[in-house]
């Protein structure tokens, strides 16, 4: 029992839907280890094929990665459709796949609440951000914030926000990857983390954005294909009737008819709304996601990429829902997969194995191996995107803009970026080892809250409000950043579960409802109070910025017209 709880907590924690779920599912569970399983040869062989193919692509990409534009943005030569797939590959973590299916398996309808939350940030990115980002920026979202604001403070702020998000997201992915691989492949935690770290360093350092993009595209295709196959297998068993699937699931599940409506996961209205804000606006402030918009040639392709990405991600979440219900009906009825025999939902290896055991129920050992390999590939694609975004924040924002005042040569900048990728890889492996037995459930809350409270307000205001000044942006953004970090630390997930205090000082799980408006408010307040000549010049520069942001005139790598 303890084993199951901890396994749920560990995988839920690392990439995704922990959020409200952790409070309910992980309450009282320490972050012990998932049990090491027998060596899974099918999975290992298929994973080796995947690694071989992606290393081949990296070799090919390395030959095409010569300039800084190639390294950071794949030379702007990715089409909207390819980028849509790559965005989906960057965004759909193993946690979305295994975690949401496990959530549906355990609680039914509640899983859908999370799927929806992960998706709805995308339309907002399209309507408000994508084309302006493409028109104003070059390699990082700090290019946009820094378009008319002072270089040193704004770049330092944006790079800090990016690195906090990237490093914490990486920790979560690393810890989750280690646990998951131990579970799926029967590999030691230490080796699992080192293999992930080494591969992501190779992809990013040698192949830059070209290799990262293709790793993400391949992974997205494998994941969508695998999930589709499982979902079709489930529906085939029920004559493609949802009604029959639901009837069987209600019959099997201990919660009976309660799985057909929202249950215990979302109880507090403040948490529900705060979670919604963190998911929606946090998505629009993730540096590795924003960076993908610089890989397309123009605003037109940037828009298309969001449409395709939203379609793929939405389709995928609908599949995870079918997979979760499928697991209730086909896995929880087979003693082969159950830790405690029929009548209990507890799965061998923990409930995050729901989708994996379902794959076995539908396609046997070979397909189980395939799905395990896909889960591993999924982690690699996500960490590669994160590493590249972190490395660009260091090389493009901190090194080239802040330290070298924009005078760095392109070659030097790329070299610094490659060194940073290796450094980030090493840091990620070390943190993964340090955090192995820690409760990392707070990490999702932290990354999405920081992204929503620091990066998102400054990015939106710099694009839409001419009155924004450097002082306003930096102070307002820092207030959002500090508030979100402090509130997460004082919340139950860290204050009580990690530090062992009795009462949480901040009563809610997510700070976004408070920290996002605060960041907007203080950015506005400090901007209107700023009447320095500097601030006046910055306001005056808005008109030129808006012409470029609306029309793409002079945009980097814009299509020839």
């Amino acid at each position, binding site marked *: 029992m303890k084993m199951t709880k901890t396994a749920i907590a560990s995988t839920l924690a690392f990439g995704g839907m922990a959020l409200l779920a952790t409070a309910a599912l992980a309450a009282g569970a320490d972050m012990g280890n998932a049990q090491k399983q027998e060596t899974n040869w099918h999975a290992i062989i298929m994973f080796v094929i995947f690694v071989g193919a992606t290393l081949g692509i990296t070799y090919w990409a390395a030959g095409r990665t010569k300039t800084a534009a190639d390294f950071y943005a794949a030379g702007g030569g990715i089409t909207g459709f390819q980028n849509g797939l790559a965005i989906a590959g960057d965004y759909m973590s193993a946690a979305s796949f295994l975690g949401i299916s496990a959530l549906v398996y355990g609680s039914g*309808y509640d899983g859908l609440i999370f799927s929806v939350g992960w998706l709805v940030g995308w339309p907002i990115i399209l309507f408000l951000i994508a084309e302006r980002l493409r028109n104003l920026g070059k390699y990082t979202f700090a290019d946009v914030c820094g378009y008319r604001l002072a270089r040193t403070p704004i770049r330092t702020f944006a790079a800090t926000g990016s690195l906090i998000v990237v490093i914490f997201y990486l920790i979560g992915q690393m810890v989750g990857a280690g646990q998951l691989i131990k579970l799926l492949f029967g590999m030691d935690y230490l080796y699992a983390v080192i293999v992930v770290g080494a591969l992501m360093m190779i992809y990013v350092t040698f192949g830059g954005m070209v290799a990262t993009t293709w790793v993400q595209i391949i992974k997205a295709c494998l994941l969508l294909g695998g999930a589709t196959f499982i979902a079709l297998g489930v529906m085939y068993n029920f004559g493609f009737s949802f009604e029959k699937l639901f009837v069987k699931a209600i019959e099997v599940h201990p919660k009976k008819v309660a799985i057909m409506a*929202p249950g215990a996961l979302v109880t507090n*209205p403040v948490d529900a709304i705060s979670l919604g804000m963190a998911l929606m606006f946090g998505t629009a402030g993730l540096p590795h996601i924003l960076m993908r918009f610089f890989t397309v040639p123009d605003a037109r392709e940037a828009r*298309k990429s969001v449409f395709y990405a939203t379609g793929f991600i939405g389709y995928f979440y609908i599949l995870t829902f079918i997979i979760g219900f499928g697991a209730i009906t086909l896995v929880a009825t087979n003693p082969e997969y159950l830790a405690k025999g029929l009548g209990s939902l507890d799965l061998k290896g923990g409930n995050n194995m729901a989708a994996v055991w379902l794959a076995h129920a539908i396609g046997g050992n070979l397909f189980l191996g395939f799905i395990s390999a896909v889960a591993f590939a999924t982690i690699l694609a996500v960490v590669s995107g994160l590493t590249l975004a972190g490395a660009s924040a260091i090389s493009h924002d901190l090194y080239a803009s802040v330290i070298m005042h924009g005078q760095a040569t392109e070659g030097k900048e790329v070299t610094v970026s490659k060194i940073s990728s290796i450094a980030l890889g090493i840091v990620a492996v070390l943190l993964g080892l340090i955090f192995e037995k820690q409760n990392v459930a707070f990490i999702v809350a932290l990354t999405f809250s920081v992204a929503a409270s620091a990066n998102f307000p400054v990015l939106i205001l710099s694009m839409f409000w001419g009155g924004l000044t450097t002082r306003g942006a930096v102070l307002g953004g820092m207030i959002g950043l500090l508030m979100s970090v402090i509130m997460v630390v004082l919340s139950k997930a860290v204050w009580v579960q990690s530090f062992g205090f009795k009462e949480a000082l901040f009563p809610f799980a997510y700070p976004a409802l408070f920290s996002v408006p605060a960041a907007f408010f203080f950015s506005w307040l400090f901007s209107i109070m700023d009447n320095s000549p*500097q601030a006046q010049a910055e306001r005056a520069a808005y008109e030129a910025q808006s012409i470029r942001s609306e029309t*793409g005139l002079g945009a980097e790598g814009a299509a020839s017209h």
Partner: protein
Amino acid sequence: MTKWRVKVSSHNAPSAANLASAEHIRNNPKFKELVAKRNAFAWTLSVIMLAIYFGFILIIAFNKAWLGTLLSSAGVTTIGFPIGVGVILSAIALTGIYVYRANGEFDEMNRQIIEESR
């Protein structure tokens, strides 16, 4: 406070031709029309998306039992399923609608504006 430089990195420095074009665009009524139309459209769709999503969240927060209402007395499917899946589909549909109009009508206006500025 240290003196913060206004001029940012070199890639933002506009060329002389761009400056002249920008001047022309600024005075082109079509530009104002494009910005007004596209922004109104983008914000309208954003508000629709926010309303759909936070509407869904508020139902969960305040009246989750309603989502458990059966679709038909003969079956077991609840109203929550089409609503939840509907939120997902509405996100996809809204992005489709925006891209259709932005890549068609708005890009054509944009092309004309750039054309006229040279």
